[in-house]
């Protein structure tokens, strides 16, 4: 009996030895922290493949600083504490130089303390609620002002929407986005009774009642629009119900921030035609860089039907920027790369130039598109210029005084302009 216990605890201890044996370092290690199983695998697997494709391409061009890039892929399995554990594994055990990863806000929040503690570097490629700026994270997805606000502007000015339904899954991103939108709409003179807010649980699949409520809300004669921050899995049943209850995009247009080409590829898009999506990238946008990227992707994934989407472009931009910054400073040292990142530019796939701002967010163009019956999204409107990602929303009372600037002398992610203090500094 003693022996058995010994063997088991021995094997645990032995493995931790193995963990601590440092490997000879002749490659640059890139950590890939995307869920490959569990609920988020649907979205995140694609990003893992994108990073691998980028690494392969970079290696074909001779790697970085004369070294090959080596991907370290782990599976945090859509389990948030496991995200923290895997980050620690990547940084402490595998000693990766950079991590590309996370999709959900909670996974990012889970990873954040670890990555700050161990001074790692992470690129986060998904649109999110903002209200964050970490020294160790670069946010290449859209902040609310790069997606939600332009979309509402479009509906208000071009479509003439007067009544608003804000539908969301009950978690931080929709909550925050809707708070921002509510404040924004009110600042534009929309009354309380013309705003309906509704939250549903994750994976909500029975939309009959809510869609019927939306229909009633929209039958007052005033043009009604739905702003949807409904998350991934719940979207299909939602749109199906819309279609079945006969709500077309002409009656009540729905603009979604979480529905892109990839999600659409799993839909029967017939009932969706004309509904809107707001992103910083669409596959349908014609440019040389984009067609080249699409071709490369289809070849890499060996599937002619696979689509590209916004988080993939965000990953692409993040990767290119990181590579550029590393070349610039000639090292993968986190502090050096972090400083070098600010101001780095990379051409967008849709034309124009993406710039990394001192608040670790990108400047990007914003597109509004209508969903077509082939699952693609046709641009119907775009911002005249790129929009600077705003880490702290101006429409929330708690954050309107905060700003982020990681260049000296400020070097602070949440500087309070009224008190002149950098809150959260130890």
């Amino acid at each position, binding site marked *: 009996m003693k022996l058995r216990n010994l063997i088991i605890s021995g094997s*645990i201890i032995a493995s931790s*030895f193995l963990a601590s044996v440092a490997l000879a370092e002749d490659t640059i290690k890139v950590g890939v922290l995307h869920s*490959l199983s569990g609920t988020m695998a649907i979205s995140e697997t694609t990003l893992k493949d994108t990073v691998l494709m980028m690494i392969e391409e970079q290696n074909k061009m001779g790697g970085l600083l004369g070294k090959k890039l080596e991907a370290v892929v782990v*599976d945090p399995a859509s389990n948030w504490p496991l995200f923290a554990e895997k980050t620690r594994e990547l940084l402490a055990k595998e000693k990766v130089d950079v991590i590309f990863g996370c999709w959900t806000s909670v996974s990012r929040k889970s990873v954040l*303390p670890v990555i700050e503690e161990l001074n790692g570097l992470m690129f986060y490629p998904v649109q999110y609620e903002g209200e964050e700026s970490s020294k160790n994270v670069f946010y290449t997805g859209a902040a609310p002002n790069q997606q939600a606000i332009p979309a509402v502007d479009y509906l208000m000015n071009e479509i003439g929407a007067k009544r608003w339904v804000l539908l969301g899954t009950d*978690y931080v991103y929709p909550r*925050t986005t809707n708070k921002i939108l509510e404040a924004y709409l009110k600042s534009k003179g929309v009354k309380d009774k013309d705003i309906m807010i509704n939250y549903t649980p994750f994976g909500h699949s029975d939309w009959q009642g809510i869609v019927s409520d939306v229909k009633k809300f929209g039958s007052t004669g005033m043009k009604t629009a739905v702003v949807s921050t409904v998350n991934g899995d719940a979207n299909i049943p939602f749109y199906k119900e819309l279609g079945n209850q006969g709500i077309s995009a002409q009656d009540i247009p729905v603009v979604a921030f979480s529905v892109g080409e990839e999600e659409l590829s799993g839909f029967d898009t017939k009932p969706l035609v004309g509904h809107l999506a707001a992103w910083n990238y669409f596959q349908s946008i014609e440019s040389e860089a984009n067609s080249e990227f699409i071709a490369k992707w289809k070849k890499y994934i060996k599937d002619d039907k696979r689509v590209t989407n916004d988080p993939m472009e965000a990953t692409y931009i993040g990767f290119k920027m990181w590579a550029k910054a590393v070349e610039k400073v000639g090292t993968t040292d986190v502090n050096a790369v972090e400083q070098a990142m600010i101001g780095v530019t990379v051409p967008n796939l849709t034309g124009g130039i993406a710039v990394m701002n001192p608040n670790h967010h990108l400047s990007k163009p914003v597109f509004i598109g209508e969903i077509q019956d082939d699952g693609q999204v046709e641009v119907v409107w775009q911002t005249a210029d790129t929009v600077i990602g705003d880490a702290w929303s101006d429409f*929330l009372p*708690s954050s309107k005084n905060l700003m982020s600037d990681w260049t000296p002398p400020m070097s602070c992610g949440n500087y*309070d302009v009224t008190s002149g203090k950098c809150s959260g500094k130890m």
Partner: protein
Amino acid sequence: MNYPISKFSSPLQRVTGLLFVMTLYVVIANTFFAPDSFWHVSDYSVTLLGKYLCYALLALAVDLVWGYCGILSLGHGAFFALGGYAMGMYLMRQIGERGVYGNPDLPDFMVFLSWDSLPWFWWGSDSFVWMIVMVVLAPGLLAYIFGAMAFRSRVSGVYLSIMTQAMTYALLLAFFRNEMGFGGNNGLTDFKDILGFSLQSSGTRLTLFVLTTVFLGLAYFICHRIVNSKAGKVVMAIRDAESRTRFVGYNTAKYKVAIFTFSAVLAGIAGALYVPQVGIINPGEFSPINSIEMVIWVAIGGRGTLYGAIVGALVVSYAKTRFTAIMPEAWLFALGGLFVLVTLLLPKGLVGLWPTVKTKAQQLWPKEKAL
């Protein structure tokens, strides 16, 4: 499950002894050996081991009710999570002004949901003592109320299992709600320090790890005493023939409520120790799948033996860590296969394998054994 434990008191000494040796070793190896030394145990490994041991404590709790009392709880994750939330609330308040919005009282998520003041149930959350009270009270009370209702009205078997599952599922949904005041889906995170010690320093980590082993050892000792006491025999009698036990004169509902509540408190303590080590607590811990996994640890280790539960938790967690790193695309095959094979081939779990191995070993190397 024929384990006449009463005759062997030695597993107690073995398990506590091993825990002690391991703790001592980890402490020395982590503190005194150079990081590049072969003998060094990294902070990463310390935290990981600490996490495993929290799971082991949790498995112990599940085994106590399932293995000894026959109550298959598919809701122990709820008690674990409640203990975790109690700890998380305290840690959240310790952040104080260092939150991103610099609000001295309100946690960040409340600030950006524009709340003005703490909800009533956060009262006292900045006190360490209150936190300890809550770690025990929250899961204990829930288990007591649930148990008192269920066991009095003699809900048993699958009905009980499904009800515990419904309980944790309802809590999962409730904690997902942002209005609940527990941070919604994101839960509680970004902790800074505990009792003034930084959670990021390796000293604190090591202390937490040592504390976990101490609690595990203590819990093992108490559980061992319980199952070997007369009350423990009664509990086993309930498992095998509940109505007979009643006719012998025992109020079985009371015994079940007591053991269920005690087990929930253990699970809560495990949760409280887990949170500062992994740095986050969120509603995902309430997920029914998690609770099923706990049962599986016990089944794999060997139900009805306290050390089996510990072994099961360690082996499965370790396998998960390794598999997700070695074969990220296929680890579910391996894990699923493991579950199937163990239930099919090893009804007594891994520790049930031991007698066979011992006999084989004695046949092969009779002399070596004599040494």
